[in-house]
């Protein structure tokens, strides 16, 4: 037991150190090098170019990367446990497709979704799909059915999006495609609070279901036998994970691979599937990965993440760490 505790402590210390380094790089390193003195908070520098770069570009980008990392990783982990499927992720439920449809409607078909424009479109789309999935979840006990419904919904919505794409002009199409590549640079200072609030609520819902998640690793019947309220746990996890995935997709676009790959990375590092450890561990790993990817501002985010994510997922499959037996 002792050595395991050690491993956990070292793991968390390592992750926090990495986050600190990447956060520093994200804030002060870049096309324009900044230092603390450029940002002096009291002096007349307040409106300087450096200060504006810092507060209006770098801080929102850092926050976007951190919140996305947390929400996608935690959503991915809890869905993998719920579906008992190591390759499940935030996107299997069709949530990202729903968000894409909202964005496509707003960009390509000219629907207006109010103040946040594209972001509201994504949020509305994600929420509509989430409610359909929740409706199905309340009707069926079987998680496999849910998985299939989510995937089918995704295909259906993708087809709708492709119809919209056919009828759109090239400029809107360009904006839509660039949204689909994912980016941490779209978050504005106003949006930070909404994103943070959604992440917080999602995290609370999932964290309150830790007992369910831990017992559900051995199947729903087993969990019931331990006195766990399976139905409630499932609904809370689905709701929380959907909210996390929807918020991240709305603000940063469909960010690939974090949801699938990070829980496996966290497991490799911590060698436990106890969600009391694995959930914070996944959140921190997600932050590290997203912060690292956000350093490459010139390359599309999803390209960077996939270059890291694909080898990891392949490794998991080949080594069989996730789907042994």
């Amino acid at each position: 037991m002792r050595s395991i505790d050690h491993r956990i402590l070292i793991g968390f210390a390592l992750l926090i150190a990495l986050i600190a380094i990447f956060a520093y790089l994200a804030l002060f390193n870049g096309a324009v090098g900044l230092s603390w003195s450029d940002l002096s908070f009291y002096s007349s520098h307040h409106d300087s170019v450096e200060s504006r770069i810092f507060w209006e570009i770098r801080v929102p980008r850092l926050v976007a990367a951190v919140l996305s990392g947390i929400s996608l990783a935690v959503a991915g982990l809890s869905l993998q446990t719920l579906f008992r499927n190591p390759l499940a992720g935030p996107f299997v439920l069709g949530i990202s497709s729903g968000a894409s449809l909202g964005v496509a409607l707003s960009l390509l078909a000219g629907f207006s979704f109010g103040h946040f424009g594209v972001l509201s479109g994504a949020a509305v789309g994600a929420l509509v799909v989430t409610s359909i999935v929740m409706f199905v979840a309340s009707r069926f006990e079987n998680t496999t059915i849910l998985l299939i419904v989510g995937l089918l919904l995704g295909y259906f919505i993708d087809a709708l999006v492709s119809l919209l794409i056919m009828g759109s002009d090239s400029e809107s199409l360009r904006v839509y495609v660039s949204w689909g590549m994912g980016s941490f640079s779209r978050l504005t200072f106003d949006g930070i609070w909404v994103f943070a609030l959604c992440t917080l609520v999602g995290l609370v819902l999932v964290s309150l279901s830790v007992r369910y998640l831990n017992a559900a690793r051995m199947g729903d019947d087993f969990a019931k036998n331990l006195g766990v309220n399976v139905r409630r746990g499932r609904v809370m996890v689905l709701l929380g994970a959907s909210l996390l995935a929807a918020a991240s997709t709305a603000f940063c676009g469909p960010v690939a691979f974090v949801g699938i790959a990070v829980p496996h990375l966290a497991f490799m590092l911590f060698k436990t599937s106890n969600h009391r450890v694995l959930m914070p561990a996944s959140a921190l790993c997600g932050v590290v990965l997203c912060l690292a990817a956000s350093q490459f501002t010139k390359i599309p985010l999803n390209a960077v993440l996939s270059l890291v994510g694909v080898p990891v997922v392949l490794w998991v499959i080949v080594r069989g760490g996730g789907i042994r037996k």
Partner: protein
Amino acid sequence: MSDFLNTMLLKCENLVLGYGHERAVVSTPVNFELNAGDVVALLGENGSGKSTFLKTLCGLLPPVSGNVLLLGKSEWAARERARFITLVRMSGVTCDRMTVREFVSLGRTPYAGIFDGRSKDDERIVDEAIALLDLENFASRWLTELSDGERSRVYLAQAVAQQVKVLLLDEPNAFLDIPRSRKLFTLLQKLAKERGMGILVSTHSVEYAEKYCGQIMVIADKQVRVANAKNARAEGLLKWTED
């Protein structure tokens, strides 16, 4: 020590079980009592309804009609019930990322708080359960690396850690060799006597049932019959095994 023995733990009142009236497992309602200190063997052919019976007793399946009273009560909150009764099954999902110790520690779930933490007491109880089933040597191994026989003992250790009063076991010795089966049944006797547990164990090992269990319950031809283990054969309860 013996003052808690013979208290009634579990009672079936006119119990009809199965999946709806058309698919009821028994044609005559079952009346049965399980007392502290009892080890009762549940015998019957494959598909006779042993597992359905056990599932109904522990509340995983609602009765078609009649009542199951646990400590005199039929309505229980799931979490509360899990502190008094559990069903140990040898099949089902196995998590590929869980160590033996972590699995045994799941037995403490009904006692854990909202964030599923484990107290010092919980850890001690888990250690004791591991020691009782001789699992110390592979407590840190992955669940998927175990042989079927080893896994049976791990499943039982988890139930011991759950500290229930009523222990239901579904064919626990299906994968065990002869010495281990014998050990298992002596352990069940010990748990019943020392901890005042009531144990109902389904098995195909008629000789162990006769030798180590106080009573034998048989499900055959949609009838449930119970007799003292010594007299079961004479009373014709085991006739179906010889046909």
